[in-house]
């Protein structure tokens, strides 16, 4: 990759801006009205607005759904600096994402690192184009925080693998085309008996069952494998070498979470909600002084969190490896999103506890559901307890009982 100078970057910005102006479908300036319009791609994708597909295709054409992946695999081949410009130009026009994809966020980076050339050619371009939607087969009923305790058996049958077992918390498995999956290929070892395989969800013996959550939504499935036959060239990396890939992939998952924290910028501001639903005194202060203090404390923590993300980026850019601040981000993000959503419920009072039916606005009906959804933030992708263990041991150097 050529090292672009400032002038080249200015040119790139101008060209990008022009291209976006010409190619961003005007109908997508309207806010997204349904989760069903999330551009997940895949074989069975369908959206309320065809421009969603158009925008995905146009971006994929340029490789900008995976801007920094090599052009050889369909990516954009952009440098870090160019990617920043692309992101800022997309933000400028408030563009919707062109493609939401576990393939891009999680699988792609590890394929680039661990897969054979043949595998890269086979899988990466379809990820970039949004043609294949992937899901992640990691957790099992008996293997949550202790992921390496997984039991899904994968036997070598000579010309193929045979997979039997059960996964849980498989995000959108019922909508996915393919799965990247951790399986046990050696029962005599723990971490060293795990392999990383890919297979088609339409393979006979694969069954998915959506899990209804306490929030009422069903973004996850139980996934069952009964005598599922998988070609042996769909193993990534070495046999029994899957744990290293799994850990690397979890890093990508956590980075993805940390980018904006949970919940992000969306939703009603807590202080605004309290002003509206609780009321203010003559000085403009939220009338419930105790709630006001807790909202202020939350907002201050949230401000610290944003400054910590900024600092961690600046420090790691300086090159001395990942910042120590990075280790706390998942833990802090989960806590903050839970605090925010609890405060929102409290600020809205019983109006924030409406579940369905008349008498509540859509935003009000979303409040308790978001709060319940946020409870998963300290469980999914590593529990807060595991996060604290990791900080204590890896960062602070404390030991286990000897």
């Amino acid at each position: 990759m050529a090292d672009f100078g400032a002038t080249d970057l200015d040119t790139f910005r101008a060209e990008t801006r022009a291209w976006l102006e010409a190619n961003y479908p005007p109908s997508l300036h309207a806010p997204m009205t349904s989760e069903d319009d999330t551009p997940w791609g895949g074989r069975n994708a369908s959206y309320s607005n065809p421009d969603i597909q158009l925008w995905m295709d146009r971006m994929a054409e340029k490789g900008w759904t995976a801007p920094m992946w090599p052009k050889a695999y369909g990516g954009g081949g952009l440098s870090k600096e160019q990617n920043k410009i692309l992101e800022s130009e997309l933000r400028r026009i408030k563009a919707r994402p062109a493609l939401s994809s576990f393939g891009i966020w999680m699988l792609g980076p590890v394929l680039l690192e661990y897969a054979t050339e043949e595998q890269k050619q086979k899988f990466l371009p379809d990820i970039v184009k949004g043609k294949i939607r992937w899901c992640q087969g990691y957790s099992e009923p008996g293997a949550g925080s202790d992921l390496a305790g997984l039991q899904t058996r994968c036997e070598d049958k000579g010309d193929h693998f045979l997979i039997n077992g059960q996964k849980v918390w498989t995000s959108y498995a019922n909508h996915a085309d393919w799965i990247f999956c951790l399986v046990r290929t050696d029962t005599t070892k723990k971490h060293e008996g795990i392999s990383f395989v890919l297979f088609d969800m339409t393979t006979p013996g694969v069954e998915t069952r959506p899990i209804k959550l306490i929030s009422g939504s069903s973004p996850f499935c139980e996934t069952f494998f009964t005598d599922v036959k998988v070609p042996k060239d769909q193993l990534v990396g070495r046999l029994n070498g899957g744990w290293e890939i799994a850990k690397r992939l979890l890093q990508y998952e956590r980075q993805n979470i940390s980018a904006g924290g949970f919940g992000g910028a969306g939703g009603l501001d807590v202080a605004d909600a309290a002003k509206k639903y609780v009321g203010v005194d003559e000085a403009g202060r939220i009338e419930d002084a105790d709630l006001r203090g807790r909202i202020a404390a939350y907002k201050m923590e949230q401000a610290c969190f944003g400054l910590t993300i900024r600092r961690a980026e600046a420090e790691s850019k300086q090159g001395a490896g990942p910042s120590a601040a990075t280790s706390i981000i998942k833990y802090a993000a989960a806590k903050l999103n839970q605090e925010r959503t609890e405060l929102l419920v409290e600020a809205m009072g019983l109006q924030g506890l409406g579940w369905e039916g008349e008498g509540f606005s859509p935003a009000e009906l979303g409040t308790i559901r978001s709060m319940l959804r946020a409870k998963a933030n300290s469980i999914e992708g590593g529990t807060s307890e595991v996060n604290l263990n990791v900080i204590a041991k890896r960062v602070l150097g404390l030991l286990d009982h000897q």
Partner: protein
Amino acid sequence: MAVLNEEQTMLRDAAKGWTQETSPVGKLRALRDSGKNLPFDPAAWAEMGQMGWAGVIVPEDYDGSAFGYLSLGLILEETGRTLTASPLLSTALIGASALMLGGSDAQKSQWLPKIAAGGIVTALAVDEGPHHAPEKTALAAVKSGEGYGLTGSKTFVIDGDVADLLIVAARTGGKPGDTDGISLFLVEKGAAGLKADHLGLADSRGAARITLEATPGELLGEAGKGWPVLESVLDRARIGLAAEMLGQSMQAFEITLDYLKTRTQFGQVIGTFQSLQHRAAKMFTDLEMSRSAIEAALEGLDAGGDDHRAAASLAKYKASELVHLVTNEMVQMHGGIGMTDAHDAGFYMKRARVAEQLFGGASYHKDRYARVSGF
């Protein structure tokens, strides 16, 4: 556990047996999934009536058993354990208390025996916004002939959509924010201009929005002087609800403790991890401290006296903080399984959040306790 007499022990054991065997959390799940928007299962309420639970605080002269508030609190604690939906709070406690404290002899004779028999459901219509604020009552009562006409609306009225008798706080004088000028009225089901709409809440029990338009109401107590009775009734409601929340917290804690003793990760039962042990021990501490406050408040009601404000605010504050903590820990300690609708944890958390807000949340009662204590 409070020191109980023989009657109370029997009542508590009967309530525990019935709720755990006949009315587990699955009953609330079934109520929700029935899609009927009912605040409780009428058949279950009929059984409670047969067991005499509707008349526990009602004097014997009016066909009650006069066992008192501690006894009713013991039943509420047990129904709270299994999240049993019922009008015990709205009717057996609040309705009976309102009539006992504010009713004329005629009103008592008319209504208390029906309450004691489990024959009617009553509802207290007090709040007009999403946050508990009884003194902000604005709903107007205007003299009309011999009686009054009530116009306005109330919201989040527990069991209001199925009530046979509403007790409505209305304003006959003063302005919202004043305690003077508030009066209580009895409004019967089917009265002219009365409308009740179900509000679907997260706890699957819900509440009602009530609108009245020149609806005839019968004065309960003295005009313009309803505040002391209303506050006394509300304090009883807070204490009774706190007892229910204590039971809920107990069961949620015990379910969680069982899970800590059985779930294995990293080759260890997770209850052997010290950080979880300390969190469990802290929850236990909160449970014990809350129980003391709630039982003392119930005993205080039975001991008599006019002013139960500090005791009621203490009980409701502690119960709210407790159930909030315990249900959060219940979900977190269960991990993923606790996030699924198939598990009971979500039911405990959703009921907790509604109960926390009803009749004032932790923040409201902390402020009130300070006010009552003079700082």
